[in-house]
């Protein structure tokens, strides 16, 4: 179901967490709220869930005004960064919680819980307590719990933030699959641009309580609206007023008239790619990104003089934010 946030503002004392934010989240989409910490992304998610009241503005879920509805009447599923597992209940009781509160018949609850545990790949662990599960398992249990009542909207607040890198990768892919299967409108908060790009089909980039840009992963990367977005969704290097992606810097051995002379200050080998830190003759620094093959063909070495030319640059009217 679609979500519509209009002109939401939320202050905590002197701090403005949300500053007149308007966002539309289309039905069935998988949207990431991406931004640095303090950008207001979690607050926006909590406003949608009803866990936080906006000082001004409105929230519409599926065409209905939900601004004054308490969380228990919004029909949203919410997954917390630290799982929020009910420690005194078994996995089965955790997942069944929403159904029990809704007074569903016992047989139905049992069947639904079994089905969900199957979906999150925890079928053998129904009678364990959360303390007996790993972090990844706890988070999958929390997901099953939030899906039990068939919410119209699934909200996840940095769902993989507390997990180690390997499990995080696994769960990302798995969330993507889950969304393809369940099709529930999903919004998740992350500060990790790679995570947002990998999982989401739409990204809302936030900074200082405002929405900087909304778009698909590729769209944001190729056509950032401002310097902040450009810098946040990928690596960036600067040449005066020009913002350049490091892989958009052409490195040659010979000058061709449009190139500038530069010295290789340092070479960093990152497996498939090679990063070259360059110093131009006027002292400006640039970072270039090359494939390993290109670097080998150029026989790049530290201290070597090369000739560079940005193949694609960007300029933004405003001063770079943040």
């Amino acid at each position, binding site marked *: 179901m679609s979500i519509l946030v209009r002109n939401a503002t939320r202050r905590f004392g002197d701090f403005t967490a949300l500053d007149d934010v308007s966002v539309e989240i289309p039905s069935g989409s998988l949207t990431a709220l991406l931004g640095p910490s303090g950008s207001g992304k979690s607050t926006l998610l909590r406003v949608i*869930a*009803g*866990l936080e009241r906006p000082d001004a503005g409105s929230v519409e879920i599926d065409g209905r005004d939900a601004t004054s509805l*308490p*969380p*228990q*009447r*919004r029909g*949203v*599923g*919410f997954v*917390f960064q*630290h799982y*929020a*597992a*009910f*420690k*005194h209940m078994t996995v089965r009781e955790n997942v069944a*919680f*929403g159904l029990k*509160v*809704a007074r569903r018949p016992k047989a139905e609850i049992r069947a639904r819980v079994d089905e969900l545990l199957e979906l999150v790949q925890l079928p053998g662990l129904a009678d364990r*307590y*959360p*303390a007996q599960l790993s972090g990844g398992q706890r988070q999958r249990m*929390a997901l099953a*719990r*939030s899906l*039990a*009542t068939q919410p119209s909207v699934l909200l996840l607040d940095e769902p993989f933030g507390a997990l180690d890198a390997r499990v995080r990768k696994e769960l990302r892919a798995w969330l993507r699959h889950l969304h393809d299967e369940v099709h529930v409108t999903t919004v998740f908060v992350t500060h990790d641009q790679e995570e947002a790009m990998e999982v989401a089909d739409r990204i809302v980039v936030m900074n200082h309580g405002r929405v900087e840009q909304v778009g698909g992963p590729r769209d944001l990367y190729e056509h950032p609206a401002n310097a902040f977005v450009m810098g946040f969704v990928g690596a960036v290097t600067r040449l005066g007023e020009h913002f350049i992606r490091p892989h958009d810097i052409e490195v040659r051995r010979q000058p061709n008239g449009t190139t500038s002379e530069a010295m290789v200050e340092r070479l960093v080998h990152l497996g498939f790619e090679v990063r070259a830190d360059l110093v131009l003759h006027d002292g400006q620094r640039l970072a270039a990104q090359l494939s390993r093959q290109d670097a080998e063909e150029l026989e790049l070495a530290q201290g070597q003089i090369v000739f560079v030319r940005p193949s694609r640059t960007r300029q933004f009217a405003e001063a770079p934010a943040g």
Partner: protein
Amino acid sequence: MAASTLARGRAGQEVRGGAALLRGTVTLYLSLIVVLPLTAVVWRSSRDGWGAFWEAATQPQALAALRLTFAVALAVAAGNVVMGTVIAWVLVRDQFPGKRVVNALIDLPFALPTIVAGITLLALYGSSSPVGVDIGYTRAGVVLALAFVTLPFVVRSVQPVLLTMEPDMEEAARCLGAGPLTSFRRIVLPTIAPALLAGAALAFARAVGEFGSVVILSGNIPYRTEVASVHVFSLVENDDVGSAAAVSVVLLATSVLVLAGLNLLQRRRTRHAD
């Protein structure tokens, strides 16, 4: 390497030696302070034989005092479970001016000599009550005195648990459709239950043994407002140490049973906390 193994071995021995010393100290201390006196009471009560013990313990006046003591102690503990939780909740979750004063006030019954508490309560709720409530020398007076001296136990055991409880469990419950009451009953209550039971056990134990405040306010009327501790005291005053010991043993045994029961409940509740 041999040297380091040796050093580690010695350190290990030292730790083990230190642990043994500590354990010995604890055992000795507890023996002197708790176990020996209790044993002495039990031994004293049995000195005149089982028949005499039984006769002393089942004296109608003794039975009445014991019955009153345990009934009121249980009632006071139960009342504390409710009111203590409410007070702790308000002190943790609510913001209001003067909160710190109220918070400091909770410890007052601990700080005040219980005799003083008795005198204060008698002055306020006795026959010359300025507020027109006269419950001096009644069972209501006994309840009031015990409620006063046991107030801090549940509040102070529940408060830190509520303080450290992350809000996300309750928020998760809310998102799953639970209203504030359901969330409290299904999420908060099970979380604070061990602390709640521990506080209730302490309040109960204190109420069973309380003397100072009750002796002033209750009037110590046999069969009506005389509690066990006061009854034991009057037996001792009348030089009937054997009977006093017998009643004390019944008091002791019943308290141990109730505390063990509460402890068992508490342990069952803490099993899955991580």
